[in-house]
């Protein structure tokens, strides 16, 4: 059972808590409201702290003691018979009677506890806080407050001053501004709060929505915002003139107001500067531009990318391209790779990591990987995209020099061999030419070398035809043979009979068949249908060459045998015509391949043979071309203004309406320049505006404007002109005299 004191302490604790809560509630409402009005956390915090502090000082919650609670209970509950304090006191201090009373009071207190209302009523605080928070929400939601009203004071330097066109207007009668403000709403993707300023020179993000609001101290009939040659009437609403514009391009603007008496006033020029959303930047670290791996290495690339952007990064991907094969048979595969770590929303600075495993990219030796990083920012609707540098990675190919027949382009590497046939012919001719100067041994040796080359060539071509490559073994054997004294024996013997028959240029096929018949005997034995069936297993048979090409190449190969033979026999003269024939055949094969390539790219229109070379021009017409290419004079109004100003400088007169519109037009031409070089041309632009509005300027000012105008003009490139002359009597006489003596 709780003692009376415990009960009392519990009540005290509870009430003290409520008391503190009440103070906080009082502070909360105004603080939220202050935030809604000012959007400033600082002001909110200060408001809160000040109210809580003041209330605390006033209410002094630290004085809220147990004694106070007992007193309060005594005063509120008569049943307690003003004896609550007994509960607090120590047992020993109390008399017998008091003890009895304490027990009684405790009981009474326990009874009263259920109906007991706290001393301080929180209802007011809650309602107030609720009302204020609701109010704040309404203000925020409906955007009721123009924030300038809070920052009502604008610097004297920022104040828009209007000067009258008519200088007779007294200073007092001039309208002046009570309030000026510009509200800037950033594009939603920037996630930036609405900004309010009194500075009329605007430098904001492209796409921001600018709302001007001007409040005057007197009635104004019209307010016009003039910008880049366009006039925008400002809307009158709630005592202020406002106008909204989406910031797309840089320029200048000024206000023109017409007061109730129809007098015109102009403000100074203010700049509208556009800040473009910057492209994201990226920096790849830990990766050389070119990486190359051995086949058995761990083929992993790992790198970090530092990405920054002014308003946040949306996406970052790696665009990777894998190339397989080489030459015409190259194939590309493109892949988009993500980074290992996720991209948080709208982060402005990111370090992204990536590990690329080339094996996982299904790359084989000889393949190459190109990749670059592409980052897009949050800009809407067209995000800014930045592409990084391209990096390369390659798996080294160990066997890259082997001849491959890839796809349909069997002739891919043929030019090398053609060249070597041509080279053979050249060498043979050279040998024939040098014959008288060479010793017999030398001559024979050279002829034999040529024969060897011819053989190597034949074997290479043999590969095309599916002949077994015996190059390696034969070459080594040959090399061995060459080292011996009698080079001829072995070879002569092997082909002796063939050579005999091939002196006549027929029957190459037979010879060859004979020759190869032996080599392929086994295979053919196993498959007696070979000659009759269409064997797709044999790549040469199936797709490589069309029949005629194949036959031609076979014939060329056969002739190579002959050519080789004659060389071996030291009769290069006899070999030469055969070599020429070989070259011709190879040329034909090459050309047929060329035509094939041609067909892919270009389909020439059919030539009407009957029209060809007839010289018929019936359907050929003369034709006409008309063009207006005169390069339009740059800045025509600036030119004219410079000329007109010269007149005004020489001979000051009043500026006419025509002058005004001329200067205004020149001002519009100038505005573009002023945006680029405000330091140089802004004053000139202001001057032109003043002239355009009919202000009287001093001579110095006009000279300055003219100077600026001339600075703006580009130099003129030389062009022809028509000279002039007068045909006076004397000239006519002279010309006639010349004519008669001609």
């Amino acid at each position, binding site marked *: 059972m709780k003692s009376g004191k415990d009960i009392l302490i519990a009540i005290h604790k509870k009430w003290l808590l409520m008391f503190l809560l009440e103070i906080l509630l009082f502070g909360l409402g105004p603080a939220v409201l202050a935030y809604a009005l000012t959007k400033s956390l600082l002001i909110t915090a200060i408001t809160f702290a000040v109210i809580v502090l003041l209330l605390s000082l006033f209410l002094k919650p630290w004085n809220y003691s147990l004694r106070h609670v007992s007193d309060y209970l005594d005063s509120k509950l008569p049943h307690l018979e003003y004896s609550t304090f007994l509960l607090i006191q120590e047992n020993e201090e109390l008399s017998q009677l008091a003890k009895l009373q304490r027990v009684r009071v405790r009981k009474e207190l326990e009874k009263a506890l259920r109906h007991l209302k706290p001393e301080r009523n929180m209802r007011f605080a809650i309602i107030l806080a609720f009302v204020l928070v609701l109010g704040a929400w309404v203000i925020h939601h409906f955007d009721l407050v123009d924030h300038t009203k809070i920052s009502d004071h604008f610097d004297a330097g920022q104040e828009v001053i209007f000067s009258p066109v008519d200088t007779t207007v007294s200073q007092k009668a001039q309208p002046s501004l009570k309030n000026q403000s510009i509200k800037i709403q950033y594009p939603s993707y920037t996630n930036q709060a609405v900004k309010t300023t009194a500075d009329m020179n605007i430098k904001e993000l492209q796409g921001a929505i600018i709302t001007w609001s001007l409040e005057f101290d007197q009635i104004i009939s019209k307010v016009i915002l003039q910008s880049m040659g366009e006039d925008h009437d400002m809307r009158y609403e709630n005592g202020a003139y406002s106008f909204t514009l989406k910031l797309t391009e840089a320029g200048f603007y000024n206000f023109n107001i017409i007061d109730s008496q129809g007098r015109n006033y102009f403000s100074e020029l203010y700049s509208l500067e556009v800040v473009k959303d910057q492209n994201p930047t990226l920096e790849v670290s830990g990766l050389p531009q070119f990486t190359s791996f051995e086949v058995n290495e761990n083929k992993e690339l790992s790198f970090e990318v530092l990405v920054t952007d002014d308003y946040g990064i949306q996406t970052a991907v790696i665009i990777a391209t894998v190339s397989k094969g080489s030459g015409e048979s190259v194939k590309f595969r493109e892949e988009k790779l993500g980074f290992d770590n996720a991209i948080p929303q709208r982060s402005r600075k990111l370090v992204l990591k990536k590990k690329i495993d080339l094996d996982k990219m299904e790359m084989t030796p000889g393949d190459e990987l190109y990749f670059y990083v592409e980052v897009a920012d949050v800009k809407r609707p067209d995000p800014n995209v930045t592409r990084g540098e391209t990096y390369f990675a390659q798996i080294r190919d160990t066997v890259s020099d082997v001849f491959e027949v890839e796809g349909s382009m069997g002739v891919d590497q043929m030019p090398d061999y053609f060249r070597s046939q041509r080279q053979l012919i050249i060498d043979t001719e050279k040998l024939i030419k040098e014959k008288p100067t060479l010793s017999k041994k030398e001559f024979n040796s050279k002829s034999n070398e040529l024969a060897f080359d011819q053989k190597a060539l034949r074997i290479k071509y043999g590969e095309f035809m599916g002949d077994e490559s015996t190059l390696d073994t034969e070459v080594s054997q040959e090399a061995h043979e060459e080292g011996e004294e009698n080079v001829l024996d072995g070879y002569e013997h092997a082909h002796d009979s063939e050579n005999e028959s091939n002196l006549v240029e027929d029957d190459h096929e037979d010879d060859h068949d004979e020759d190869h018949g032996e080599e392929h005997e086994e295979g053919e034995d196993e498959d007696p249908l070979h000659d009759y069936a269409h064997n797709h297993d044999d790549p040469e048979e199936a797709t490589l060459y069309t029949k005629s090409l194949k036959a031609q190449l076979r014939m060329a190969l056969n002739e190579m045998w002959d050519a080789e033979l004659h060389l071996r026999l030291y009769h290069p003269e006899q070999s030469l015509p055969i070599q020429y024939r070989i070259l011709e055949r190879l040329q034909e094969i090459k050309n047929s391949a060329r035509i094939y390539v041609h067909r892919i790219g270009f389909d020439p229109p059919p030539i009407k043979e009957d029209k060809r070379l007839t010289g018929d021009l019936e359907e050929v017409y003369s034709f006409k071309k008309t063009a207006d290419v005169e390069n339009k004079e740059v800045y025509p109004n600036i030119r004219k203004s410079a000329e007109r100003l010269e007149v005004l400088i020489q001979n000051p007169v009043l500026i006419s309406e025509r002058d005004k519109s001329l200067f205004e037009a020149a001002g519009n031409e100038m505005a573009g320049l002023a945006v680029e070089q405000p330091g140089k041309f802004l004053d000139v632009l202001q001057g032109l505006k003043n002239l355009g509005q009919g202000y009287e300027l001093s001579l110095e000012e006009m000279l300055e404007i003219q100077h600026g105008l001339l600075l703006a003009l580009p130099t*003129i490139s030389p062009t*022809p002109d028509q000279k002039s002359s007068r045909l006076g009597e004397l000239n006519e006489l002279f010309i006639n005299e010349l004519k008669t003596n001609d």
Partner: protein
Amino acid sequence: MIESITFGRMHLFWPIIVVSILLWILFVWKEWAGNMGPRFLIKIVAGLIAVGALSMIALQPKMEIDEENTFSAILSPGYKIVQRDSLAKVHKGIQMIDYMPGKDLSGILKKGQEVFVLGQGLQPYDLWQLEDMKVHMLSYQIPEGITKIKYQQHDIVGNNFEVQGEFQYMEGKQQLFLMGPGGTPLDSIEQNSTERQRFTLKGKHLVEGKYVYALVTKDSAGHQLSSASLSLDIRAKRKLQILIVNQFPSFETKYLKNFLSASGHEVLVRSQVSEDRFKYEYFNVKDNGKITLDSKTLNGVDLLIIDQASLQKASKSLLQRVQEAIVKEGLGLFIQADADMYQSPISKFRFDFSKQEAKSVEFDKYPEIELSKHPFVFIRDPLLEVIHESSQGIITAYQRSGRGRFGSTVLDRTYELILNGKTNVYQELWSKLVTDMSKRAVLETIWKQNEFLIYQNAPFDFTIESKEENPIVIHDDGYRVPLMRDMDISQRWSGTVFPSEIGWNKLMLKQDSTEIFNFYVIDTSQWTSIGVKERIHENRKVANQNAYGISTAKSLNPIRPWWFFLLFLVSMTYLWIEPKL
């Protein structure tokens, strides 16, 4: 002696002589006493003398006598007192005349007298008053500052212009600035000579209109010391109509037509593509159907650019038409040369070439830029007018033919300049060529100002040449300027105005209000050094002319009648006394 006697009453000469003779005859008859004695003869002579003396008194004879030399000194502004005093010492009684511009000296100075001019001298328009006098111009230091100036006052937009001049040493290290309109500095030089220094300042005209440039002198600290106006009347370029005829399309023509049309000229191109098939191109001009080479077309264009191949193929009548257009209408014909041109030229339009090895040329103006050319150059000829010339010879030239001209160039493949990025050189070359070759715009009226600097309230002489029978020139103040016709050339007139307004003035032809002549009037405080130098020069010229050869002055003095009266008295006394003796 007798020749030098004249009579004051010349008009009464004969009546008096007749009356005198009659009187004498009457006297002789009265004295006749029947014999011719010596007394009679003496009497007659005495009578003759008396009558003669009487008639002389009536006739008032005058005799020319050598006059004694008198001296005058004209004290013009800036004279030195020392000079004046020395003169006064040497020539006692010398007449000192204070000169003011426009002062009438005729009453003061006498013909044939010796005049000393001190100071800067008389204004040129007052110098006539010193005619027939012996004039001595005493030395006068040429003032410091700009003493000579020369530039093109009437110019064209886009032209580079030069202000050339000379200045006399000025105290301290000074700089000279050429200021464009709006006070834009265009060029400057620094004084580096202690005597006379020539200078050339350059600029480029960017805009048309009437402008006043300024020549400003500043000291080394940059303070402006003086400023003088340079008036410039800048006009826009005129548009030409150019016809290009080619036997086949070529790169040269392609780039040329692009350049010409981009410059705003009207360009017509006719290039043959096949037999009787042409490609017609119209740039900046309305498409008028086929371009035929008839007289109408040829007379209408200002320049015909034709390749040698077309010219070779041209019919006789076409050549005739072209020649007529050149001679009568002033057409310019430019022939795009090829090898044929040097071997078998068209006789009507032929030039003499000399063969030259070099196939490229470099102009001094464009160093290190090699231009391709045919291996020929023009042979110099008095009839040949040169457009481009290099150290290798004449590169581009034309010949006059009637009102027009025909020409060619040995340059080849000039479009390479554009391909090499030397567009400016290309443009300059062709601009000069086309400008020089094209038909001249015929001016109805030509104005000429005789003085370079026109001062307020000072006479300004101008000349006008006009087709008008009786041109009437109006000043923009509204008054009519009296004109005087030239003695020899009936279309040439001259006049003088005294402009009172500083700044731009204009003269107009009443018959044709488009004929306007703008001139700029300055106040006398400007260009003083030039004015003074010119004045000294003019005065010296007069002094040199009139220094010798003028005979000593003679004057006609009336012979005093007293002497005749005495003669009369003596002869009368004799005649009175003689009978009494």
